[in-house]
């Protein structure tokens, strides 16, 4: 289970100078087990190893990090104080603020941070082998990702649940605050576009997938009406009905695929783009109870259930990893899935599973308003992120149990693979791997898809890997097609929920920003204002989605780096704000805790961003590629990837837009960083601590759960 990395509870033993011999022995054992896992990973050369070693190395490291590092951060760096009342206690209003059981809040927070990112990123990163990805997912989460989530959560909690943007404005300055706000909005647009593209690539030309994912809309509507009119408030009951209907929809998809109705559900990528854009608009203007809320329940249930299933599957089936530990693409940077060498592009691609800037938005959103006791930031902030990292490790395993030949046949751009299984087989052979055309046809047939060639985006690869693992445990080879479509459905559901919610959040941000210029548009109840701003948000991500889907060179290869850099830049903003706040609070001594991950993240993102803008290698630099194609247009030539002159112009336009966007992101984040640096210097030089917006100390009147030993069912039910 993912949670097994955590001790039984977030309980803190009262200050004790030494560990008891028993717990010392246990922790030495945990350290040894983890070390054995790492040793097996490090020492295996050439031979195939079991995925279990990855799991062992991950869980062992998480346990040690949680027990020692997160405790050190909580006690020494943040100095959490359980006698201090949290905003949930002080401002309790029964709506936004109320002290919530830590186990429940852990679930809430995890459901809010976990999405498709940690599933897709590691799959693409498998291009460089399983070892670099695993090392970064585990080391990155321990020293960067989980630290960021926990400290942002703590700082926001000490400020009555202020958002990251507000904290930046209040504590750093107007310029940095404004840059952070615009940056967050722009980054979100790219995020939505790339995630939607993953869905499009997973559903295009697949009747089964399209049918079952389309069915989620009537199912969600049914749940919405059921909850509103028939059984108000019975969420658990409704969710179970919804999940049952969802499973039926997956089975029904198989039936549709084999029937004469199939042709109505085979949609081209372009059609899917228009459907998604239309859906995104409608979903963001409909009342939340109709579509958004029930879909969110469904997605949460599926998320937790599938992740648990996956953990069981990996441990029970114990598949062997077919991928190499480190491929040559790690050093040459010429991989077909994403371009560029290990540093910095591996870290950009993995993104969310190790460090995710977006979590800073969730950690400074609802969660800080619900924490019962300060020390619980450890379980909720650090613990949830460790769990998310474990999900990323499992996604990496799912990608690495596939034959490398199949992996590259699925994930390389269509321009490289060509239209048929024969051309794909040949292209894969040129990359240095083997898969016969017959094997490709058989692999597609096993999951009842028309073809698996060029199904980039990560979702289909993950689904094939999951089907492989699940079929080994539940149901055998005959169930493979079901599990494949189950996995596709689960990812699409995740992503569509993110698209719904993200469009709505984006709309509020836009209304807020535009409201400064023209008052009426800021009013949240003025219908035309809602429609205009929703259309603007949907139009913005819809543009990038369409551009990506129709990109002759492969949208994932072009846009995923933009997405990864955007996400990691947001993390740089969050880490810069936290480092500045630590220094402002007179904790210069401990500033390295967020300062080191910040330095690393800035090095990674700015190197990657710089290369994307200025590299003269057309495989990496947006403008270099643009120039190459523009020069060819002048000469009237067609270059690889383009089948006609329109394609050539599309490539030139897309790369110009991507390059400009990249440069804008870098400038926005640079503004925030400089502003933070100025505040830091001022804070260090100032003889008295600079003022902060931390809420003053109020003594807590509620008991910490550590003191009253209530059992799980002891809570009022």
């Amino acid at each position, binding site marked *: 289970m993912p949670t097994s990395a955590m001790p039984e509870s977030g309980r803190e033993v009262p200050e004790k100078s030494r560990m008891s011999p028993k717990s010392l022995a246990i922790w030495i054992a945990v350290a040894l087990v983890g070390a054995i896992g790492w040793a097996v990973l490090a020492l295996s050369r050439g031979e195939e190893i079991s995925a279990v070693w990855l799991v062992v190395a991950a869980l062992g490291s998480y346990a040690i990090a949680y027990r020692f590092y997160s405790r050190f951060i909580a006690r020494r760096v943040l100095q959490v104080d359980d006698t201090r009342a949290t905003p949930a206690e002080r401002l309790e209003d*029964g*709506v*936004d603020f*109320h002290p*919530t*059981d830590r*186990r*429940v809040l852990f*679930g*809430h927070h995890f*459901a*809010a*941070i*976990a*999405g*498709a*990112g940690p599933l897709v990123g590691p799959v693409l990163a498998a291009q460089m082998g399983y070892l670099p990805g695993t090392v970064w997912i585990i080391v990155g989460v321990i020293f960067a990702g989980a630290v960021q989530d926990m400290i942002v959560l703590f700082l926001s909690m000490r400020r009555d649940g202020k958002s990251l943007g507000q904290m930046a404005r209040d504590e750093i300055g107007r310029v940095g605050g404004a840059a952070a706000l615009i940056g967050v909005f722009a980054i*979100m647009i790219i*995020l939505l576009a790339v*995630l939607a593209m993953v869905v499009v690539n997973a559903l295009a030309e697949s009747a089964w997938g399209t049918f079952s994912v389309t069915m989620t809309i009537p199912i969600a509507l049914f749940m919405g009406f059921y*909850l*509103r009119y028939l059984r*108000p*408030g*019975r*969420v*658990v009951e409704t*969710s179970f009905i919804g999940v049952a209907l969802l499973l039926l929809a997956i089975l029904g998809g198989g039936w549709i695929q084999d029937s004469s109705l199939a042709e109505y559900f085979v949609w081209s990528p372009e059609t899917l783009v228009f459907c998604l854009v239309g859906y995104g608009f409608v979903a963001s203007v409909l*009342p*939340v*109870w109709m579509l958004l*809320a029930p879909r*969110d*329940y469904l997605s*949460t249930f599926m998320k937790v259930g599938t992740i648990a299933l996956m953990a069981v599957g990996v441990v029970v089936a114990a598949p062997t990893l077919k991928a190499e530990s480190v491929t040559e693409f790690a050093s040459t940077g010429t991989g077909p899935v994403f371009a560029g060498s290990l540093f910095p592009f591996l870290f950009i691609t993995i*993104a*969310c599973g190790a460090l*995710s800037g*977006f*979590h800073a*938005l*969730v950690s400074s*959103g*609802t969660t800080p308003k619900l924490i019962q006791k300060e020390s619980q930031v450890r379980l909720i902030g650090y613990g949830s992120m460790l769990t998310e990292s474990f999900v990323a490790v499992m996604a990496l395993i799912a990608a690495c149990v596939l034959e490398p030949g199949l992996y590259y046949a699925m994930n390389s751009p269509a321009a490289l693979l060509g239209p048929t299984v024969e051309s794909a087989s040949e292209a894969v052979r040129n990359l240095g791997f083997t898969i016969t055309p017959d094997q490709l046809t058989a692999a597609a047939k096993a999951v009842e898809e028309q073809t698996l060639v060029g199904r980039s985006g990560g979702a289909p690869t993950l689904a094939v890997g999951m089907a492989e693992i699940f079929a080994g445990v539940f149901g055998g080879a005959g169930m493979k097609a079901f599990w494949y479509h189950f996995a596709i459905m689960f990812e699409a559901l995740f992503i569509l*929920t*993110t698209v719904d*919610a*993200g469009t*709505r*959040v984006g*709309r*509020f941000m836009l209304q807020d920003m535009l409201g400064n210029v023209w008052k009426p548009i800021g009013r*949240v109840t003025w219908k035309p204002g809602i429609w205009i701003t929703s259309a603007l948000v949907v139009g913005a991500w819809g543009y990038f989605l369409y551009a990506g889907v129709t990109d002759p060179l492969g949208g994932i290869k072009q846009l995923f780096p933009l997405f990864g850099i955007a*996400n990691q830049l947001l993390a740089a903003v969050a880490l810069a704000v936290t480092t500045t706040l630590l220094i402002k609070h007179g904790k210069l001594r401990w500033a390295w805790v967020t300062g080191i991950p910040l330095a690393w993240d800035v090095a990674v993102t700015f190197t990657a961003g710089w290369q994307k803008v200025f590299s003269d290698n057309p495989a990496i630099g947006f403008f270099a590629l643009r120039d190459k194609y523009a020069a060819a247009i002048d000469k009237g030539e067609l270059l690889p990837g383009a089948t006609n002159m329109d394609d050539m112009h599309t490539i030139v336009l897309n790369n110009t837009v991507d390059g400009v966007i990249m440069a804008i992101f870098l400038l926005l984040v640079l503004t925030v960083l400089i502003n933070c640096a100025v505040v830091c210097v001022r804070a260090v030089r100032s003889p008295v601590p600079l003022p902060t917006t931390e809420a003053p100390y109020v003594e807590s009147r509620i008991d910490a759960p550590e003191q009253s030993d209530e059992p*799980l*069912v002891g*809570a*009022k*039910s």
Partner: protein
Amino acid sequence: MSLRRWARAVRWYLRELTGEAEYDRYCERHRRHHPQAPVPTRREYDTLRTLHREEHPQGRCC
């Protein structure tokens, strides 16, 4: 723990996680703060809650 206790624990957790238990907490709070006023029905409370959700969108992560 016996099976029944487990079942109750799971039910408690699911109700808390999905927010189904919020209504009970709201009623209890309502009775404490406004002992005279009638407690809103489940349906009324749900309408209030959706309205609140409408105005406070919560982002999901990637």
